[in-house]
């Protein structure tokens, strides 16, 4: 029996759904993402997700920061001093100095370190309240413009964009540790939080290997992408996939999406984009494969994704038992307890 880890052919059936529809999910092809963030807005409009803070993060064009209770879609922007396949970034031959990426990343990192919650408030609260004055990249120049720049200090460049979302794991850590039954596996094989049941215990937050699920500040309840459970039940696409202008986010039956992704990967490899790879596609990975998987153009860490996610329930049933005890404790207390701390 492999219900808690490894490949699982019939994830909905395993969760008690008989005569269920095929498993559905997202294939996000980041190689065609234009970073417009339509997915973030369409998701919020449909699901009435609250606004998530008005802070300029300095992380390229990303001012959302990370997935959370109030951001169920998150578009990451990565500026890199390398090139994609045969793409010509156009900077060769210009009088450039060294790349500014190390310094800008350093400035962002310094802010994150100074933040009380280590960055988990990204995009939600101003970061940090008393931030140290940013340091300039070098000494102010008194020279003529251009004198400080050497020739062709940087030539390679690319700008990656990727829309992240809950992975709707085959073995979902959040679901496995939920003591109240608020999280459940739908007939589509997706994982949904039921707000009418969630008591805000927060176990799911630490149960998620991707750092996706999060509790909302005002009521403490867990929130994340539902893969638009209400929409797909009526034959509609999830809001994000429907809006996506370039079809970077594709919704459909998981089996078909995997085939499509394999074809796209082969096509990119043929075009010389050797660094293209699929992430979350493999049913043998630590979470039994993701319902929402990705085509990436670099290592997952580059996009803020864990390289080798493991469902925290790999060593269950101990965790399950503990979750059960916690649930009992909640019932005895008769109140909802709120676990202090952030998402991580």
């Amino acid at each position, binding site marked *: 029996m492999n219900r808690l880890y490894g490949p699982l052919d019939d994830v909905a059936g395993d969760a008690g759904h008989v005569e269920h529809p095929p498993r559905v999910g997202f294939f996000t092809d980041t190689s065609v993402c234009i970073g417009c963030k*339509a997915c973030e807005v*369409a998701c919020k409009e*449909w699901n009435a997700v609250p606004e998530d803070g008005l802070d300029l993060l300095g992380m390229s064009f990303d001012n959302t920061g990370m997935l959370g209770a109030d951001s169920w879609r998150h578009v990451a922007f990565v500026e890199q001093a390398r090139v994609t396949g045969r793409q010509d970034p156009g900077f060769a031959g210009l009088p450039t100095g060294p790349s500014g990426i190390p310094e800008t990343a350093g400035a962002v990192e310094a802010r994150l370190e100074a933040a009380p919650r280590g960055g988990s408030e990204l995009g939600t609260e101003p970061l940090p309240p008393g931030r140290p004055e940013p340091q300039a990249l070098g000494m102010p120049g008194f020279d003529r413009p251009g004198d400080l720049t050497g020739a062709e200090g940087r030539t390679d460049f690319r700008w990656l964009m990727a829309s992240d979302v809950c992975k709707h794991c085959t073995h979902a850590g959040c679901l*496995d540790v939920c003591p109240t039954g608020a999280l*459940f*596996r739908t007939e589509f094989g997706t994982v*949904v939080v039921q707000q009418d049941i969630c008591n805000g215990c927060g176990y799911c937050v630490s149960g998620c290997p991707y750092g996706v699920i999060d509790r909302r500040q005002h009521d403490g309840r867990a929130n994340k992408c539902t893969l638009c459970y209400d929409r797909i*039940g*009526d034959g509609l696409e999830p809001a994000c996939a429907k809006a996506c202008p370039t079809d970077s986010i594709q919704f459909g039956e998981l089996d078909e999406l995997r085939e499509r992704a394999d074809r796209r990967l082969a096509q990119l490899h043929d075009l010389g984009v050797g660094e293209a790879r699929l992430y979350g596609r493999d049913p043998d990975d630590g979470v039994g494969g993701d319902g929402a998987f990705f085509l990436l153009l670099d290592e997952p860490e580059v996009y803020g994704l864990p390289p080798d996610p493991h469902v925290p329930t790999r060593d269950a049933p101990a965790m399950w038992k503990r979750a059960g005890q916690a649930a009992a404790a909640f019932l005895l207390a008769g109140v909802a307890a709120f676990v202090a701390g952030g998402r991580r």
Partner: protein
Amino acid sequence: MGVRTWLGSIGASTPLGAWPVYRQLTGADPLGRGAAAQSPKHVGLRPRTASADRVAGSVCPFCAVGCAQKVYVRDEEVVQIEGDPDSPISRGRLCPKGSASLQLVTGPQRLDKVRYRAPYATEWTELDLHEAMEMIADRVVAARERGWQERDAQGRRLNRTVGLAALGGATLDNEENYLLKKLFTAMGAIQIENQARI
């Protein structure tokens, strides 16, 4: 996958919501993570678009691509705006601004009462809409008169006023621009401009 393909894959005549949900409390879902855990509220959940009283065909009000929108109305309130997949221009897709149309139309930022600032005032005051229209008409007639130019220095006919000007139109309907231009032209007002110049 487009909506149509998706519908086709599950049988267009039977919405998925009609599928039976089996709450197998024993046997099929022993861990209580699926069917057995589903709350009544989540059984047969339908999208709010399904209960709309009507759907209006519209067009996104932001840029000039002209993406088609479907506006869902229930109880005389707009409950959802999303792309119309039938459009050969947009195929149902919307950018972040277009996707925020619902907030644009229904958000608390919308003005709903006339605001009036008297000369030298430091605050807004309220003003009845029809009274405002009467006041504006008075001012238009006066400004037109004040800025009237019958002939130029060489005696050529000008037949116009420079007392009033207008700016705007790129966000308005053709029919609206038509009436505005027609009215202003008949009044002899010539300084009528819009974003197309900018």
